[in-house]
């Protein structure tokens, strides 16, 4: 199985994980290896999804790219530079609620600019603009608990994108939403993304979502010591509509192909770790 089908691009990749192993020290003095020897590149402007069974270490990999975790061996490089400390070029959309509950939607969005030294007035104006772009212009004064799950994700998206990060890291951002809202959010994400094509690393356990959104789909085995076990290009044209693209023949063929491997490899992964 060719795990790294992508040709090495001439300019440095937006995100490059090479031989990254991430282990946690447990209380008992043992270590738990979450991800083992993972190599992955995301080219500038590329939308890559990581798919794997729940608890396989996908988020761990994302945190390594964000600089929230340091790999115990191997390294993470951002645009050719080895990452140490936080990844300042990345925006991160978390799986759990990460909005500041004590700030209004507007303040939640503008804060990312204010920390960067943008004057409060301008930050507010731009935040209003971003709220409008995610369809929440009328909800600027609401606090997070007054918003629905989908609306909170929209605020989160605006909060991250307003800083115009070169890289967008997303950890099952639409996981807790219902199916219709997920589809709407997926289309919104693609819309916003197509405007300036950031590099995206998108973690999900939903293979359909991954194919519909991405340029490439990367499959991980089950943890512990999860590995990258597959890498597919998605040959679907853009712009895409999430609902429509799922009806296309190429989508089904790719889905079947990946799912076969995903299933097999996951079973194999279980057998390996279970036997060891």
């Amino acid at each position: 199985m060719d795990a790294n089908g992508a040709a090495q691009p001439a300019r440095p990749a937006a995100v490059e994980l090479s031989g990254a192993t991430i282990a946690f020290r447990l209380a008992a003095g043992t270590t738990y290896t979450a991800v083992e020897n993972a190599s992955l590149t995301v080219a500038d402007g590329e939308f890559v999804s990581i798919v794997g069974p729940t608890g396989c270490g996908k988020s761990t990999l994302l945190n390594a790219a964000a600089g929230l975790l340091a790999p115990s061996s191997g390294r993470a490089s951002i645009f050719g530079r080895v990452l140490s400390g936080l990844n300042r070029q990345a925006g991160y959309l978390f799986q759990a609620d990460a909005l500041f509950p004590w700030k209004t939607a507007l303040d939640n969005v503008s804060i990312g600019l204010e920390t960067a030294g943008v004057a409060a007035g301008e930050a507010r104006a731009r935040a209003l603009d971003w709220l409008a772009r995610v369809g929440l212009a009328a909800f600027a004064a609401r606090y997070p608990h007054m918003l629905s799950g989908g609306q909170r994700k929209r605020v989160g998206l605006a909060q991250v994108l307003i800083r115009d990060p070169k890289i967008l890291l997303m950890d099952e951002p639409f996981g807790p939403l219902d199916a219709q809202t997920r589809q709407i959010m997926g289309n919104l994400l693609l819309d916003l993304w197509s405007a300036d094509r950031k590099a995206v690393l998108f973690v999900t356990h939903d293979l359909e979502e991954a194919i519909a959104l991405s340029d490439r789909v990367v499959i991980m085995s089950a943890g512990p010591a999860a590995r990258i076990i597959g890498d597919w290009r998605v040959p679907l044209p853009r712009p895409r509509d999430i609902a429509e693209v799922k009806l296309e023949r190429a989508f089904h063929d790719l889905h079947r192909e990946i799912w076969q491997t995903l299933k097999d490899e996951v079973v194999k992964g279980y057998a390996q770790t279970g036997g060891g």
Partner: protein
Amino acid sequence: MNRLTLIALQLLVAIISIALWYLLTTIPVSDGKPLFPPFFFSTPADVIERIVKWFAEGTIWRHLWITLLEAMLAFVIGSVGGVLVGFWFARQPRVAAVFDPYVKMVNALPRIVLAPIFTLWFGLGIWSKVALGVTLVFFIVFFNVYQGVKEVSPTVLANARMLGMNERQLMRHVYWPSALSWMFSSLHTSVGFAVVGAVVGEYLGSAAGLGYIILQAEMTFDIAGVFAGMFVLAGFVIVIDGLVTLVERRLLVWRPAAADTRT
């Protein structure tokens, strides 16, 4: 239950209680005496008369003001101290670990035993009462702020860092609001304890305040005065609690109201 019915029922409880009190202290049962002798239980009429007299003569205002002043000072000083130390301990786990047994020790101490010492140190004026209130308020605020800073959601914290916040900005936008929200959620308790500190302090030795008038009445077996003092104190606490609720509503607008069981 609509609001009107609720208020009607709440009033009904008061009316029935006062009626019972009236009947038990005035209707003779055996050998011409009521079941509850007015010498020990007073009567509603006497108590109301006393309260009206206090307010009519205006003597009560000075005592109310003194108690209020003591409670406010205790609340402010205790809160500021609690916030500062709570923050410090939460951000410096080593300091917290070193002081932990002593914090527990002092907090376990029934604060009332400190009252004589405070009287000795600060005299019979308001400051010995303020000090007693401070020892009560401080620990409530301290524990809440400590908890609030330590229990900031790790996701919110990671998000704040990814949004480029430095240590100072984290303080201002994450730790501080989180700590304040915990502090405000204990506002009713800490304000209540500030009043308790003031009144208990007055009761143990003072020249003015609600605790003082209750003590004075008690020492002359003036039961109507004791009850009147208690009712004025209760009313005082209800008014303060209402004000706290107003402040809380303003400050914690961002909080879901589900957990609010007060009316």
